[in-house]
């Protein structure tokens, strides 16, 4: 099951500690194909100018590139209008924009904000701030022992008091896909808006915001082959329209008087200051590349990888796996621990074999506590990973306990 995609990624051609680099930290950030690197380079070599501002040809070109990318993201997400696509720095900034603009404006004392225990800190901390500032309550949807959000939990926690439901589509620790349709259905039945953190889903399978009927969705470019520093906020137009600006300054204005300002219409209202046009062009090139590979293909590769990797990990007597009971609900993310060995030691020892995994709490402290662990090891796959990568992981894991003086 080796594939040729790896040849498109220059960074994967190098060795690490004298070994072939096996990159299994795609949940943190993905590597970039040459087409994306070239697109960014071409932007700075041929098109760099401040968009929307210059009355000269180069600025017009930069503007065109920027707005073409917005249209590409619109199609990619199935949004109705390009003005519903806001470019941000990353998913975290998108969630902060929602917390500070939507949350601080529309949440009142006694209201409830519902999130899940499996959220990344980016989708917890901003809501804690809103809840504290507005006298609202943060309610948690808890997952069951298998890491799954059940219908009963959704029915129980989302109530007439709920005004915002903010959930991740895929857990960055367990890789489990949440039942967004059910959450949206329930939330809308009580008049709440639904915010979906798509950081771990949008890169891995097709996400259609209109089919899901989500009110807002966020994701980061760097987790889907694009450069760091570019992210997206999708929002339904009627909701974005009634929200106040988040950051203020240049280009998000219509008229500025000495004491007052009228704001530009969407999407400029939420895009203050000079934007990351090179990054946006990189995101556009990343979407092209992903569409060339195709989501059915990406899903199939990742599914095959976990179906290959998990039984192999289960055969290792010294490994504990988390959230691997139902592989039908799982993306290419595997969280595990090596008995008696701290994840950081595991990571350092695997690194010596060129295998890069994540070790730690994955910015998900509440989930770690809920699972009763301090930290885990995480191997997260993308479509350029192969069975050979899994084999390298398994082989390297075989050495870990020995290095620290334990018999296997």
């Amino acid at each position, binding site marked *: 099951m080796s594939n040729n995609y790896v040849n498109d990624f220059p960074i994967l051609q190098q060795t690490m*500690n004298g070994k072939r680099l096996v990159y299994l930290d795609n949940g943190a950030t993905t590597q970039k194909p040459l087409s994306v690197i070239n697109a960014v380079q071409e932007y700075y070599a041929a098109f760099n100018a401040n968009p929307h501002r210059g009355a000269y040809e180069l600025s017009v070109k930069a503007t065109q590139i920027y707005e073409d990318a917005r249209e590409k993201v619109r199609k990619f997400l199935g949004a109705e209008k390009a003005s519903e696509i806001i470019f941000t720095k990353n998913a975290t900034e998108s969630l902060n924009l929602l917390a500070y603009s939507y949350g601080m404006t529309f949440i009142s004392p006694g209201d409830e904000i519902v999130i899940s225990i499996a959220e990344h800190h980016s989708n917890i901390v901003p809501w804690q701030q809103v809840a504290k500032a507005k006298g609202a309550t943060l309610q948690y949807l808890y997952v069951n022992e298998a890491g799954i959000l059940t219908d009963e939990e959704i029915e129980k926690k989302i109530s007439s008091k709920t005004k915002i439901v903010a959930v991740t589509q895929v857990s960055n620790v367990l890789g489990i896909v949440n039942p967004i349709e059910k959450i949206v259905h329930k939330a809308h039945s009580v008049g709440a808006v639904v915010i979906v953190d798509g950081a771990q889903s949008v890169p891995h399978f097709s996400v259609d915001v209109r089919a899901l009927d989500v009110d807002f969705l966020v994701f980061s470019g760097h987790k889907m082959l694009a450069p760091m520093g570019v992210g997206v906020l999708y929002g339904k137009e009627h909701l974005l329209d009634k929200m106040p600006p988040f950051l203020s300054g240049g280009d998000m204005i219509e008229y500025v008087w000495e004491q007052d300002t009228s704001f530009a219409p969407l999407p400029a209202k939420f895009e203050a200051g000079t934007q990351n046009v090179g990054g946006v062009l990189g995101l556009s090139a990343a979407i092209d590349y992903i569409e060339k590979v195709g989501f059915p293909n990406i899903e199939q590769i990742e599914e095959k990888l976990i179906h290959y990797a998990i039984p192999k990990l289960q055969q290792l007597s010294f490994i504990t796996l988390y959230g691997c009971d139902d592989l039908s609900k799982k993306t290419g993310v595997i969280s595990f621990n090596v008995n008696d060995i701290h994840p950081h030691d595991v990571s*350092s020892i695997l*690194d010596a074999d060129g295998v890069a995994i994540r070790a730690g*709490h994955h910015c998900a*402290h509440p989930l770690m506590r809920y699972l009763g662990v301090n930290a885990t090891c995480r191997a997260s796959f993308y479509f350029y990973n192969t069975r050979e990568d899994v084999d390298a992981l398994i082989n390297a894991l075989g050495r870990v306990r020995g290095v*620290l*003086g*334990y018999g296997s």
Partner: protein
Amino acid sequence: MDLSEIYTEIIAEHNKSKRNKKQMENPTVILKGRNPSCGDEIELALKVEKNIIQDASFTGVGCAISQASTSMMIDLIRGQTIEKAQLLIDTFLGMIKREITEEDQLEILDEAVALQNISNMPARVKCAVLSWHTLESAITAEEGNISKSS
């Protein structure tokens, strides 16, 4: 990277040993040390009487490097004066920062010299120094107590 330079036998032994990892009865100072970026937490307990660290122990969770470093530190400071402990801290941190490389200067660190190679592993430096920074804060806290009570 040669793992045997980092995960030496002595580090593996200290990591597994429970000699210094236990609750202490009636400590005079307890201080938590945290590495927020990785979630490691240790709690260092000292019994300081008449300027001497009569006993020390720790509890908590962390990787082999942090656990071994803490255990070795406790072996070194037990029975020592506060001033000697401060010298050990300065020497250890100096070794990790590669500011102190002279063998005779590092001699006082005894087994803890085994952690010298951590300086080649920037990603793990914070694991090695966690307990030493915690000890420094504990000593400062203890000195505060002394000056308050005197």
